């Protein structure tokens, strides 16, 4: 086994996971450096949940390597797990226990428990220690879960769709404790989310998975800058879509051809001109548009009857 590395919180090498004939993770090489907030996005079925189940040692891989905080994921010891905080969208906690009892149990479990971190985060919510977990609202449960995870002083905090289904106020409280609290200052955060609005606000780094492979790892603004939107006045239907370089999305609106393209500079204008464009314009896109255009590109669609 190789030496535990401290530079990367997550490292996979040629990681594969096969369910029957389907590859959920396809030769995935991923290295997430220590520190900051890393957003992981991907369409449903891109392999995010499988990846985290393997990394946390809940599921064996078919082949390849997976390490978390420098440890082999399949051989995590309780003290390794103590260094990792995990909050998922379900916020599954025993509903029949009181908030205080759950907190006491966790305090007992984790050697590095920081009561002040727990109090700081839970202070954002109107939660009483004698309340039953089952009586908490979804937002309160999310906050309680985050408080528990941060109180264990994790080096790595994995958040899987943590704000799904939360109202605006609960969402804001959640982001505030994550971004500005002292509790989260020392840890690396992995933030899985479909909500680009949040990703844009919180992420230092944008990791995009597609069909079990890594397709982007860069600052969100750098990714956005790779995508541009062109509008051209082209005769007839325009060029064959298969010949359009870097094409992510196209649409014909009011007789004008709209293209969202990846990694195309001014040369794309030359392409359109050669295709007979009478006029054209280009503009930058929002992060949301860039990511969604990118993910829509290879989205499976039923075979169309009319192409036969």
């Amino acid at each position, binding site marked *: 086994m190789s030496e535990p590395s401290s530079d990367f919180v997550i490292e996979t090498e040629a990681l594969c996971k096969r369910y029957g004939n389907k590859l959920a993770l396809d030769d995935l090489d991923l290295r997430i450096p220590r520190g*900051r907030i890393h957003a992981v996005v991907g369409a449903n079925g891109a392999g995010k949940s499988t990846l985290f189940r393997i990394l946390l040692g809940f599921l064996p891989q078919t082949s390849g390597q997976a390490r978390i905080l420098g440890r082999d994921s399949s051989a995590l010891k309780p003290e390794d797990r103590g260094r990792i905080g995990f909050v998922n969208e379900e916020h599954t906690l025993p509903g029949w226990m009181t908030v205080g009892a759950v907190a006491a149990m966790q305090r007992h479990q984790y050697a590095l428990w920081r009561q002040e971190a727990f109090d700081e985060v839970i202070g954002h919510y109107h939660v009483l220690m004698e309340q039953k977990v089952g009586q908490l609202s979804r937002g309160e449960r999310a906050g309680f879960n985050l408080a528990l995870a941060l109180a264990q002083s994790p080096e790595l905090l994995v958040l899987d769709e943590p704000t799904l289904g939360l109202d605006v106020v609960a969402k804001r409280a959640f982001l505030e404790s994550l*971004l500005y609290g002292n509790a989260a200052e020392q840890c690396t955060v992995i933030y899985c989310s479909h909500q680009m*609005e949040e990703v844009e606000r919180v992420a230092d780094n944008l990791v995009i998975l597609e069909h079990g492979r890594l397709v982007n790892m860069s600052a969100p603004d750098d990714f956005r800058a790779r995508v541009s939107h062109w509008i051209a006045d082209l005769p007839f239907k325009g060029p064959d879509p298969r010949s359009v370089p870097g094409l992510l999305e196209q649409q014909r609106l009011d007789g004008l051809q709209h293209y969202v393209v990846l990694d195309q500079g001014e040369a794309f204008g030359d392409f359109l001109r050669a295709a007979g464009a009478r006029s054209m314009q280009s503009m930058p896109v929002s*992060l*949301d548009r860039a990511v969604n255009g990118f993910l829509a590109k290879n989205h499976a669609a039923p075979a169309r009857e009319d192409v036969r």
Partner: protein
Amino acid sequence: MARPQALMIQIATGDPRPISKQIVDAVRMKIATAELAPGDQLPSVRGLAQQLTVNPNTVAKAYAELTGEGWLESRQGLGLYVATPRQRLSDAERERRLDDAIGRFVNDVIALDYPPGEVQARLELEFRALAPRRSA
């Protein structure tokens, strides 16, 4: 003890401009219209990040750009302040940007079909409205 100046700015997600760029533009506008005067202290990185609910690194990046361009200056251990104005652009660049801005303005306004004299009068008023804040 002097407090930082309140910075009343808005950012929007889903905008083609990155959030850090939106902050840079907004601060430059405040300085250009003298809502922020030389010597005014900017909010802390953490404070502004919290006000806007964004990652503090995004604010730090915007502040670094503004400092690099000479709009802000840092005072050791005290924070960031609006710098004393000096001409930050070459004459050619200023000329080019003015041409650009006028071009865009004329394009927008021409379709509205106002007599040029009326448009000029309105512009004059807008500039006069900026003036008092400058001396305040």
